[in-house]
């Protein structure tokens, strides 16, 4: 298991921001964490990266105890914040060299890691240009490249595609998939973009009201939430099928008894966005 969280609770003054939260994430998975604003996603990721403390509970990362083995955990983890966490007045190379050195890398290993990160994120053309001159997409790539310097076993990506064009977004998502496939890096991905999570992640959790309200493998999650639409001559009837087809059979029987002609039947899966809105009640959050 990559991450095991038991009964995690965190207060901000008297306000509970994480409520007895438990979660298990498998090694090598691409885990997507969804949740409306204020649900506690950033707090959870911040705690995992020692940016915030928590009040009670237990965390184990790759078998290391969170409180006792901070150094070991930080050595195998990497955090890519939502902001451009680098120096805009330095070039990509200077940024990579600086952060690499802080990870304790020394030449020639440092140079090799920089070369690898540059290649994975296709930063070759921008290596000697100052970062403030880059487009949003290139900045995001540099942000990720820095996060790969220590060859992490677990990579936290906090909304890494905010504010960039669709081409850059697609490129970044493919880079993330590649890292996960090739290096078997466990990736914790938070985003507001449902279609990104749906495209990218194989393991999905929804955090709402400071708790995990749903955690499932993507295929199971979408399968369990499939529905059938029955079109009669007068209306469209949507039937949730979930684990069995009893609802569907009952509806068909009812329609037959009423002699209602059926014109067509559609089998559908709810997409993640529908599911998310359904589970979080679709209410506007602060």
């Amino acid at each position, binding site marked *: 298991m990559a991450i095991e969280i038991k009964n995690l609770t965190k207060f901000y003054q008297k306000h509970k921001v994480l409520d007895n939260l438990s979660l298990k994430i498998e090694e090598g998975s691409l885990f997507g964490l969804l949740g409306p604003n204020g649900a506690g996603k950033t707090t959870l990721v*911040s705690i995992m*990266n*020692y*940016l*915030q*403390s928590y009040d009670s509970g237990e965390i184990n990362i790759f078998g290391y105890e969170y409180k006792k083995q*901070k*150094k070991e955990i*930080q*050595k195998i*983890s*990497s*955090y*890519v*914040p*939502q*902001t*451009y*966490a*680098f*120096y*805009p*007045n*330095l070039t990509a190379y*200077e940024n990579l*060299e*600086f*952060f690499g*050195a*802080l*990870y*304790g890398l020394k030449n020639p290993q440092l140079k090799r890691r920089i070369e690898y990160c540059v290649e994975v994120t296709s930063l070759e053309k921008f290596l000697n240009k*100052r970062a403030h001159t880059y487009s949003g997409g290139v900045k995001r790539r540099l942000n990720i490249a*820095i996060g790969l310097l*220590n060859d992490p076993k677990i990579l936290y990506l906090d909304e890494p595609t905010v504010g960039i064009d669709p081409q850059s977004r697609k490129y970044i998502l493919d880079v993330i998939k590649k890292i996960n496939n090739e290096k078997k890096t466990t990736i914790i991905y938070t985003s507001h973009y449902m279609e990104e999570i749906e495209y990218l992640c194989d393991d999905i959790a929804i955090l709402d009201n400071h708790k995990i309200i749903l955690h499932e493998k993507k295929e199971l999650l979408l399968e369990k939430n499939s529905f059938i639409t029955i079109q009669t001559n007068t209306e469209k009837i949507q039937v949730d099928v979930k684990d069995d087809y009893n609802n569907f059979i009952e509806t068909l029987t009812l329609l037959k008894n009423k002699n209602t002609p059926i014109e067509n039947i559609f089998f559908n899966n709810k997409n993640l966005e529908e599911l998310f809105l359904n589970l979080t009640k679709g209410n506007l959050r602060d």
Partner: protein
Amino acid sequence: MFQYILKKEFLLLSRDIHALLVLFIMPTLFIVIMSLALQNTYSNKVDIKLQVAINTILNQDIQYITQEINKDNYFQAKNTNSENIKKLIYEKEFDFVVNIVQNYKNQINTNQKDFTIEIYINPNISLQNQEIFKNVLTKVISKQIMKEYFIKNKINAKTLSHLEKTITIIPIYKEKEFQIKPTSVQYSVPSWLVFSMFFILIPISNAFINEKNFGTISRLKSMNIPFISIILGKMVPYFIINQIQVLFMILVGIYIVPLLNGDTLQINGNYGLIFIMSSAISFAAISFAIFIANISSTSEEATTIGGVSNILLAALGGIMVPKFVMPEFMQNITTFSPMNWGLEGLLEIFVMGGGLNDIKAYILYLIIFGIGFLALSYIILKKKENI
């Protein structure tokens, strides 16, 4: 690791043109301008003398007064013949117009009570210069009366001219003896050096706030970089920058100011002591900068708070206006400014040729000030859960 932190800070600073202007160009200009502007205050050299009209309407026998005033370093006298005093002051541009009654010598000798000498002034003339002129005129008239008395009583009149030559001004230095007198550049270099060292606040606070707002601090924390390394990573490079400022400003005083007809900077104390003193100033300035960076959320806020507090500390600390021209209560207030501790310490070395004993109190104040602000920053960061 630390070499990369230093490299990063130097690269960032070398690419920050505004910071370089504030840290190096601004104090250079201040040193040059203020050294030249205050040159006359510290030396006998006077380029512009105050103009005096000795009005001969009432008295034809005043040639002696005009000649004697012209011997003074600060005044240049001419005989005039006009009833219109306003015209003499505002059109002929005299600073003083002196009207002396007929037979004034006899009247003084006979102690006539209604006898007056009228000095008309341009209101722009400072009270200090008015007093100086009044004393010069008193001296000239007294000298004339005494001279006539000596001649009348057959006393050797040379005694009188010897009198002024007998009085000489000798500066006493603390550890060595120097022939030269204090110069304006000896005051302006330490003053503007201290001022510019405290302006390290601008690049430090900007760097800190950018790191905070861009999330770089979060990234560094998640990388297990200790807080002390983050703080030292800022303090050490900027300490080195401060020392480069010290060297640069001393070189400006030695080589640039003389090129513009100013005095050459002479340092009467020990160079090692300058390093010790400037290290204490640097520690105080950097700690204050870190504090300002922690209480500000944007660069604009830090620049405003930091800039205003620096200017206030400079005004209170005797940087902008020399302490000796301040009234007593203001001089007492200067002792609360860290810039004043730095300035007084450097003046002890630059001007007085003082030793470690003379500057140790200032060093102690600056270190306490620095530790205090670092401790406050730590408490604030701890409260914000940034440590």
